């Protein structure tokens, strides 16, 4: 089965504050087919994102498959609230980049 990059399959891959102490990540697909296929592939899971971002499972606040939006969504706790001195990403908007290159084994897409 050929591999595709997640960035080729998803319409949107983004991160953003969800309140002052969490950052939420959205991976959104154009069609139900691609969404279901990525879901089935299992490349995105609590365990895989914890490994990718080098964080313990307790830092993951939630991991949700959001069918109405064809989206896989997870949220992590920050190590300190946004805008504390030294926080380099007050909006949490540039934390998603490691997701772009995830290899997804797919038949379609």
């Amino acid at each position, binding site marked *: 089965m050929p591999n595709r990059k997640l960035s080729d399959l998803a*319409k*949107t891959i983004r991160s*953003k*504050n*969800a*309140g*002052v*102490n*969490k950052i*939420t990540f*959205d991976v*959104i697909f*154009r069609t139900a087919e691609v969404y279901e296929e990525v879901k089935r592939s299992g490349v995105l899971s609590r365990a895989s994102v914890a490994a*990718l*971002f*080098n*964080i313990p499972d307790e830092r993951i*606040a*939630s991991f*949700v498959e*959001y069918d*109405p*939006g*064809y*989206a896989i*969504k997870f*949220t992590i*706790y920050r*190590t*300190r*609230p*946004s*805008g*504390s*001195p*030294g*926080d*380099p*990403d*007050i*909006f949490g908007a*540039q*934390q998603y*980049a*490691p997701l772009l290159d995830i290899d997804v084994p797919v038949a379609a897409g």
Partner: protein
Amino acid sequence: MSDSQVGLLSPFKIAVFWSACILAQSMQAMGAEEPLVAGGARMASMKIISPNGHLGFAPLRTESFRRGIEAGPDYIAADSGSDDVGPVPLGSGQSTSPEAWQRHDLKEMLLASRKLGVPMLIGSAGDTGANCRVDRYVEMITDIAAQCGLKKFSVGYFYSEVERDWLRGKMQAGEVVEGLDGFADLTEEELDATDRIVAMAGVHPYLKLLDEGADVIIGGRSSDSAIFAAPALARGFPENLSYYLGKVLECASFCAEPYGGKETVLGEITMDDVKVTAMHPEQRCTVASVAGHAMYERSDPFHELVAGGRLDMTDCRYEQLDGKTTRITGPVFEPANEFRVKLEGAGRIGERYVGIAGIRDPYTIANVDQVMDWARQQVRERFGENGYELHYNVFGRNGIMGDMEPRRAHPGHELCIVVQGVAPTAEMAEEVTITGTRQLFYARLPDVKGTAGGVSFVFDEVMRASPAYRWTLNHTVPVNHGLEIFPTHMTEAGV
């Protein structure tokens, strides 16, 4: 944007005063042929336009706003708040952007509102909804009205700030001020470290001011969705659809595609559904964009907490009506058993300076941790271990993601180090920062070839930044009803 987590907690037992009133209206309304009158005339459907998801953060785009006006809205409303901007604006009582941008949007909205003769609502004035921001918005409305010679109209406004002693009283009476999202329950020590607190209002002060006939409402800190839900509730539309209308409109064109902020969207509510339409010629509200918006900036895409209840979007149905419009049915509103409101608080840490240094030597890049350790050590020798903060962000290595950066071991061929020093006085913060920056230049690496200076400087100085603050409150507190801590006022503007 980004402030929907207003508290309430399960299990749901009794609806409190205001929720009960609203529920009664809704139930009566469901049995009536047309919505009941509550602060407005009967109508079978009602339209609101939302021109900006964070008024003041960047100016609204006038073309789609003009189209929105031409569609004949019954209300014009916008959220002006966000906690995305960090704790500094709340703590220091400032806005994050030039006042000219706020004035621009307020003027566009006010002129349209007066021309059409429909109310205008602004929530969370000036980013934070602090009292001084509400006052400033009211002043700007008054100024604009005078300058443009607008006919006399009424301006309602309300405050959202909470006194520390009021909260202390609650705590001493045994109420637990519960922490959200990993914050511990509030202690008096943390309360003492707080400079300013705002509570997040629900629909209640808006309903009161609409009922009193306000033509313009300037709100303190508010739930985003409440700004739009209130006019719908005032006209007798059901709670579930009213809150959904608020949810979908609060970020303006973020519920449309293709991506493009600051464009106007129009929401229409009936007794049966909500419809949302993009006003920009190139934008569309699609099933995907509207459903997708429900997950934006929140961890739970199915639920929205507001003061007094919870909107459940699990069973929402989305239908494409035409190229630009999506119809939504099926949201559920659950009134809360206990009325809790969310609190946001910021506390000052100290004065702050910033320094910048660059590195090109690959050996120095490979050993940048030692370079920073050297500089830290010089600060420590001068000021000791405690009583200040010194932060380094190493851009080109892991400046943005810190320990989460998978490519931390593969830095770029040049690095930029941003240095922040925070201390009780400006004088000390400046010296901490300049020591922490200048000593990068003198760091001693055993095998470095370049012995004339270890870093490059864009400026051989450090720059004073805003004082450093931190979020001290991200909590909820029980209140007796939705107006308890949101005093409303009326004034007039125009000639």
